[in-house]
């Protein structure tokens, strides 16, 4: 209870600061619209080659994960700014749980991602998306879980490096291969070695899981996707908490 209360206090503070900045809110909402409007026309003609009935059912799950990865991976930049202002240290001398300090921040990223995902899916319906309601809810849930994991990871790296100059290249070198290897935009079919490499990337399974669940099926693909989303989140949360606990962080 105390932990949830402390998490909420940190979350509420982050939310208040975020909502007061209208530019941030607008950019956040425009992002999914841009994704759909720019990527959609590019990808729709290709859908047939992958044997999809509906182009948007194939691509929206990819766009969701991309939104999840990119939006949240940069959470660490905000954290470095807060660290520089002394906020992190001030919070670390309070008796509050270190996990609450991290989760309150990650919760904001998750909520932001949730809103963006809903906007993306609603807009996709206008473009012609057909998907099961339950599948969409499940798919968004997986996206948010993955996004929360990325935010934990990014915050932890931010707190360790305490420098935007380290964070930017590091996150870029992680996000780009993950983006490509996950088959976010195009499912990987060739060559074989690339497929093998992609198989060990958890986000690939998460994308496949969301894709499957969007069509309304609940098969092993979905379970594997869910499994990996939970594993990635748990790993990031544990590591993030450790970094927040670390003495010199």
């Amino acid at each position: 209870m105390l932990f949830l209360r402390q998490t909420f206090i940190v979350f509420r503070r982050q939310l208040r600061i975020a909502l007061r900045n209208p530019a941030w809110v607008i950019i956040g909402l425009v992002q999914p619209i841009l994704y759909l409007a720019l990527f959609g026309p590019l990808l729709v003609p290709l859908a047939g080659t992958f044997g999809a009935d509906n182009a948007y059912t194939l691509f929206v799950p990819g766009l969701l994960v991309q939104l999840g990865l990119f939006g949240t991976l940069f959470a660490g930049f905000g954290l470095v700014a807060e660290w520089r202002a002394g906020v992190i240290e001030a919070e670390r001398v309070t008796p509050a749980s270190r996990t609450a300090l991290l989760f309150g921040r990650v919760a904001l990223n998750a909520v932001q991602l949730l809103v963006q995902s809903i906007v993306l899916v609603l807009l996709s319906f206008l473009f012609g998306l057909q998907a099961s309601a339950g599948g969409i809810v499940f798919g968004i849930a997986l996206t948010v879980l993955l996004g929360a994991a990325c935010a934990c990871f990014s915050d932890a790296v931010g707190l360790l490096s305490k420098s935007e100059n380290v964070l930017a290249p590091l996150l870029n070198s992680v996000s780009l291969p993950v983006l490509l290897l996950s088959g976010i935009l195009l499912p990987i079919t060739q060559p074989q070695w690339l497929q093998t490499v992609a198989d060990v990337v958890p986000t690939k399974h998460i994308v496949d899981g969301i894709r499957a669940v969007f069509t309304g099926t609940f098969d092993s693909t979905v379970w594997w996707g869910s499994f990996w989303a939970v594993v990635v989140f748990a790993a990031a949360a544990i590591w993030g908490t450790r970094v927040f606990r670390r003495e010199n962080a």
Partner: protein
Amino acid sequence: MIEVEGLTKTFPSRRGRERVEVTAVDGVDLAVAEGEIVGFLGPNGAGKTTTLRMLTTLIRPTSGRAVVAGHDVAADPVGVRRSIGYVSQSGSTSPEARAGEEVVDHGQLYGVSRAAATARARELFAQLELDGLWERKPAAMSGGQRRRLDIAMGLVHDPRLVFLDEPTTGLDPQARANLWEHIAGLRSGRGMTVFLTTHYLDEADALCDRILVIDHGRIVASDTPDALKRQVAGDLVELVVADPARVDAARAALAAAEPEEAPLVDGTRVSARVRGSAARLPALIRRLDEEGVVLDGVEVRRPTLDDVFLTVTGRSLREDA
């Protein structure tokens, strides 16, 4: 309020390819009584910040024991955190947040109810001359206001003991003097114990009951500012003689006042360091008067803490500041 025995902190480091342990704090013993204002002085790299971070549970000691506000820093860090306030050098608020909300949120993280934290924050804003700044962004505040806001953050849960890390660094003289009053008020108004680090000797002098000097990770001096200054070679007494022909007589008179070294003569100025000059000055003046030596002036300069610093650490604090 604070009891520290043999507190030590070593950091792993590298010298070339070799791994070495760097000792930042080397067996510090200190004690602070309830209601004291204690100044913690030392050049950069002397172990000041590391000691402070151990006492505020931000880092774990390598060895030794520290009991802060009744709780052991290693065994019960949460107990320590609950009982102390900490005002760090780097600030504590987001530039884009609202001042009042930052303080209330901070209080809530200490487990204070929202209503109680709000009431306490309003009270602190009034005391610290932050009235009308509740809705202000810290980014739009002056340096002095921001520093007072940091202090409000550190006091919102009503701690008995507060740590201030370089509280007036970067402030203009007026804002510093103003902040000193507020810090002194913490003890007189609330009976708080204050432990502060500073680079400024005048600050330690004006504010602190007792001064601890740390150098190379060890406490090298601990006493009241006056006692520390008395340890230094005494007050500088300077006589300005009206008639250049009587300089020798003045020098003889000063030499008779048991100075620490032979008096120096510079034109019509005769000077020497004299211990406890207040007691010797009347006799000195009387003798000069009897011998008919007319003075244009007498100056007595008490040793400054900088003299103390030079004596105990072998270097001036200003060199590193």
